[in-house]
């Protein structure tokens, strides 16, 4: 069953067509990867889905409900959250607060509750805290609760972004290069985490350049080049697609040209 549908989506920045009539379906419960050369328009697709950009043409819908024109914060409420390619944490706040804020759209308390502190609000706060700590434990960050987000190392910050996106109980999770800046060992751990997240019923849409990771966990892969979809299929199919090899993958057998 298709959860998210992109229908003829196009966006232009001035003269540049960053995403060009893309049609794509993401099925409930799968891990779909989007790959492509730098500047192909992958992050832009994420920005379109989350309404940070509005498409010049085309429609996007989540389980039949249209997303175009709906403000970003509503989209999170509808069940799509994301991480960013360049990390965007609330850097001066604690790790725990970062994750609690992630649960914002599942909370109800308003100003009245804030000022009256009725038991209902206390309960909600306790629930949020519990959920947040669980998410942190899941991503192996529980020991860093009180740390300021900006003091975490790069890899930890990436995981914190995932934790923040997770607590909102999304239907669809968008991960933009989650493994960037991680070493191979850490990538293995991350792969395992992504798989476990999927197993809790969350659909995953992933942008990543690390082929080992992409090939290792995705069920399907879509390839973008100059804003156009040039291939779509299982990892095996994509890996052997000539267009993809030419535009993106390369030989995969780097050899020093010199000596050593």
């Amino acid at each position, binding site marked *: 069953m298709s959860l998210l549908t992109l229908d003829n989506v196009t966006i232009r920045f001035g003269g540049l067509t960053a995403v060009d009539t893309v049609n794509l379906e993401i099925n409930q419960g799968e891990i779909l990867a989007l790959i492509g050369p730098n500047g192909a328009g992958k992050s832009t697709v994420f920005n379109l889905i989350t309404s*940070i950009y509005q498409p010049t043409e085309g429609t996007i819908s989540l389980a039949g409900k249209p997303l175009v024109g709906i403000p970003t914060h509503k989209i999170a409420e509808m069940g799509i959250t994301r991480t960013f390619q360049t990390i965007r944490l609330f850097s001066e706040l604690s790790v725990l607060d970062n994750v609690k804020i992630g649960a914002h759209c599942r909370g109800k308390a308003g100003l009245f509750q804030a000022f009256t502190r009725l038991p209902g609000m206390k309960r909600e706060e306790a629930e949020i805290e519990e959920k947040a700590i669980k998410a942190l434990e899941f991503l192996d960050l529980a020991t860093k609760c009180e740390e300021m987000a900006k003091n975490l190392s790069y890899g930890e910050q990436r995981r914190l972004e995932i934790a923040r996106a997770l607590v909102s109980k999304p239907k669809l999770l968008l991960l933009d290069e989650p493994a960037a800046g991680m070493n191979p060992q850490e990538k293995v751990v991350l792969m395992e985490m992504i798989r476990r997240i999927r197993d809790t019923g969350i659909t995953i849409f992933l942008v990543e350049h690390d082929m080992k990771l992409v090939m290792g966990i995705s069920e399907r892969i879509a390839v973008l080049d100059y804003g156009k979809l040039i291939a779509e299929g299982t990892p095996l199919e994509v890996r052997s697609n000539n267009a993809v090899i030419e535009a993106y993958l390369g030989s995969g057998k780097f050899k020093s040209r010199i000596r050593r």
Partner: protein
Amino acid sequence: MPILNNLMQQLVNGLALGSIYALIALGYTMVYGIIGMINFAYGEIFMFGAYAGLVLALTNYVNVYVALLGATFITMVLGVVIERVAYRPLRRSSRLSALISAIGVSFFLSSLMVRVKGPNTRGFPTLFENRIFEIGDFQITIYQIVIIGVAGLLMLSLHLFVTYSKMGRAMRACAQDQDAASLMGVNIDRVISVTFAIGSGLAGAAGVLAGIYFNAVQPYMGLLAGLKAFAAAVLGGIGSIPGAMIGGLVIGLTEILGVTVNLSEYKDAFAFAILILVLLFKPSGIMGRKANKKV
């Protein structure tokens, strides 16, 4: 038609007033664009320049050009010293900390001037003969011509300097990423000092010219000047030098326009209302590039 010739005259008036604002805003926007801080002491440097020019002009040996150059030099030094003492230690902390430090400096300078020169408004001695040219039905004074000319000239040369010179490029690099700039071999401290020197020198020169034009110098004159410069710089687009010029002119013209349409008691409100209105349609100022932050 009297209304029409009035209107032409009012346009000239607005242009002259706007040029003064532009003149003050040029240095302001340059420092503002590069250090990224709201330099509230800028108005006081302007005031200091006006006083320096006044004191020099009152000594018998000095003519108008020497007074202008002298004041420029004095404020250059003042600007560099202020940056060293009050801003440099705060370079890596929040912008608002630097803002408060700047407010402190501005209190300091204006109160100091009250102590030294008294609170009274001073007139400027006549440094050169004011002449009036009649063109058709409206008049333009030589002071107005000088102000408009100087503002335009400075705008052009400053723009060329910042866009094409090596130092100008280094300044822009600092504005965008100080660490990266230092890795290119840019001496950050020197660039910022030079920026402050030029900006403050311009403030000083503007102080003298405004002093001559309005014929009034006063220890608290900096506050209003600083606000107008701030408004002009933001209206034009932060850091944009042609923008500062346009912003200054727009504010000057709307103030006069307010008077012309019989709203002189609402003149300042009028100018700010236009400012807000423009920003609502162009949230990064008239010449400002849209903050194109890629997500």
